[in-house]
């Protein structure tokens, strides 16, 4: 692995996005629009907006970066550029880390915009630090994009790749505690939710939203999300064979 090639890859992915202003507008605009919509939907129950608003600041980037990266990686596989890269002096980790870094940068911009709107305009309150929320949003985005890199190996077309979002992420959103406390779920589901990355994303954001203490549990959530990211990168590397049929 070489930092030079990793950073060149990250820069290349960002330049590709820059040539696609509509995708950037969607990445930045959709969470803004959705969060505003949720604020108005719960116009009569401001406490509900307070409860779900903060976790959503992390769930949005995880979901959008998952989608974008899985399609981007699928394109790399189907366009022949992946085969070309495999014949060049480049480690698989250079490619995967390059993607993760590029989408972390995009997520930082997205988080700044969406958090600014949430705290500045929509009146969302956090007890903890807004900077911690931003940091968690970026961490979630990186976890989401590395999971997207991995699952793209199982898609043969862009039609399939976009379907992995509802298959892979929607159940996690249902089970993470956002809609209902996990303790009240069917026991089996509660157990399953212990193994889903989104649960820890929700948990961490919820903690920062409701307390200013940096607790050991918060660090545990962060550690799990980092672990998921590393695991997804390792699994992604395993699904990138240099030799194909």
């Amino acid at each position, binding site marked *: 692995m070489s930092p030079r090639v990793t950073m*060149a890859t990250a820069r290349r992915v960002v330049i590709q996005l820059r*040539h696609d202003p509509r995708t950037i507008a969607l990445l930045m605009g959709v969470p803004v629009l959705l969060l505003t919509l949720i604020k108005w939907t719960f116009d009569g129950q401001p406490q509900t907006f307070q409860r779900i608003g903060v976790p959503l600041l992390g769930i949005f980037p995880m979901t959008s970066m998952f989608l974008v990266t899985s399609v981007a990686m699928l394109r790399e596989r189907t366009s022949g*550029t992946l085969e070309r890269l495999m014949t060049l002096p*480049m480690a698989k980790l250079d490619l995967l880390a390059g993607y993760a870094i590029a989408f972390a940068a995009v997520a930082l911009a997205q988080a700044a915009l969406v958090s600014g709107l949430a705290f500045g305009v929509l009146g969302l309150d956090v007890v903890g630090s807004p900077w911690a929320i931003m940091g968690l949003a970026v961490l979630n985005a990186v976890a989401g994009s590395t999971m997207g890199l991995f699952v793209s190996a199982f898609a043969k077309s862009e039609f399939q790749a976009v379907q992995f979002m509802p298959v892979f992420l929607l159940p996690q959103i249902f089970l993470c505690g956002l809609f209902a406390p996990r303790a009240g779920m069917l026991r089996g589901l509660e157990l399953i939710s212990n193994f889903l990355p989104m649960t820890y994303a929700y948990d961490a954001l919820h903690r920062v939203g409701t307390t200013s203490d940096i607790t050991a549990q918060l660090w545990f959530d962060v550690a799990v999300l980092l672990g998921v990211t590393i695991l997804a990168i390792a699994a992604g590397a395993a699904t990138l064979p240099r030799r*194909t049929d």
Partner: protein
Amino acid sequence: MPGPAISIRGLTVVRGKRPVLSGLDLDIPPGRITGLLGPSGCGKSTLMRSIVGVQKVRDGEVMVLGQRAGSPALRIRVAYLTQSPSVYLDLTVRENLRYFSTMLRVDHAAVSRVIRLVGLDEHGQSLGGELSGGQKARLSLATALLGRPELLVLDEPTVGQDPVLREELWATFHSLAGAGATLLVSSHVMEEADRCDRLILMREGVVIAHDTPAELRARTGANNLEDAFLTLVRARETA
């Protein structure tokens, strides 16, 4: 006599249930342009992919520049042009080449040089997706010419190109070979065969001839290589 640049023994590739190559043996000399000719589907691309180490191989040994095909150390010494252009459609010509140049450790001057070589001077700022099919193929070829490879494996590099540019590309290939590089160039166009130092004729996964163009003509008594090819195929069928 230096050893072969590429040495293949018993190469077998199976795709699905169909054997594409079965027990192929081949030695390709260094510092020469070897043409790989045969109808589409005869196994040319599979053979090339095996040489650059991206093809799943059932059996056999492929040695390239003294190392096992696909070894990490070969990646900077071997350049590969895929049959269909592999370029980023959402990057400009120059951005595409700059990205690949980082991996190959060459500078921006090399990028400008290959853009000129493939005649894309006026399209440096065009996006890959805005290029015509032939221009995309040229951008893909430019990437293969970017480093300082000792072996170039080029799958149909001149297909569909303008005759003037094709002439220039062949001159580039000859100057690379003159400087000591080995080139393996596939084509399904027989008229390109005479530009090669040596020819490999393939049909249905089998090498039916490997010789210089002159010797092939002499052996078959044919005036052109198309006829020589037909003579060889018929000779095998009656044998």
